[in-house]
């Protein structure tokens, strides 16, 4: 009985922690750029474009070489956070099933 109670408590703590993580990570994600960077070669020169989807349209914006690294870092950060959020949500679904 005590073992079940401890396990339940640990699961509830993990559930709350995951929810807190999801909230904080989603807040950060909302401030990071969506989309991706594409590279085009024109006349043996490389140009970088920031592309993102708006409804049915793909928007594109030229980015200077000096800004590529910063933007790329932000996009990678967004993807990392989105993956972590997905894992947290999956884990919470498993916890909910276990607590039923």
């Amino acid at each position, binding site marked *: 009985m005590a073992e079940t*109670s401890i396990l339940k*408590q*640990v699961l*509830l703590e993990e559930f709350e922690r995951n929810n807190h993580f999801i909230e904080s990570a989603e807040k950060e994600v909302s401030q990071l750029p969506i989309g991706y960077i594409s590279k085009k070669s024109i006349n043996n020169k490389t140009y970088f474009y920031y592309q993102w989807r708006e409804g049915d349209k793909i928007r594109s914006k030229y980015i200077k070489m000096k800004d590529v690294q910063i933007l790329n870092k932000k996009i990678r950060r967004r993807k*990392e956070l989105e993956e972590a959020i997905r*894992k947290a949500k999956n*884990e919470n679904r498993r916890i909910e099933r276990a607590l039923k």
Partner: protein
Amino acid sequence: MIENKYKEFWEIIDLLDKENALNHLIVIGSWAEYLYEQSGLLSGFRSELRTRDIDFVIRNKRKPSSPINLTNVFDEAGYIVEQDRITGKTRILTLARLEVEFLLAKVGAGLERTMETNLGVIAETLRNIDILRDNFIPVSVKDYVVNVPKPEAYIIQKMIINDERGDKSLKDQRAINNILPYINKNIAKSMYQNLSKKQKSKVDKYNAEVEILDFLK
């Protein structure tokens, strides 16, 4: 995910070590139990539950004398750094959902719920942390020297706070029972004798209910 949890724990320790902050901190809670096991401090001990909370006790809020800014360090290293909306305390979140918090021993009237520190984080002040702060031991694991509470202090502190822990009290009782066979009873007795009257009565109350620690008397 379990692998990530340990990897990230050591990444945090590494970061703190590189900033020369590790010596100013004591790892408490279930991660201290992990370090008891990994360091071989308690021969044969196997830790069980490990939550994603990593709690550090700050030994002295005015140290190091040349302040460092761990908030910036964690932020630049890609962690989610936030301040609690109610208390203002610093909380660091990792992608494997570890949650790092900093604690200080509350002294005197202790009206402040949080305090700024020379480590550049805002720590939560809690009562009965002093026993952990004043009775720690450095252990070597991997290439790091990490401070943990002496196991005797660890279980005595858990006894003192047990009646305030609500739903977590059973989990703490289990932790006490797991460590109990490995502690030095003379050290535990000496620590008990140095407790305040109030702390002693809380340990006595715990023992009256659980009946496991006759040797403290």
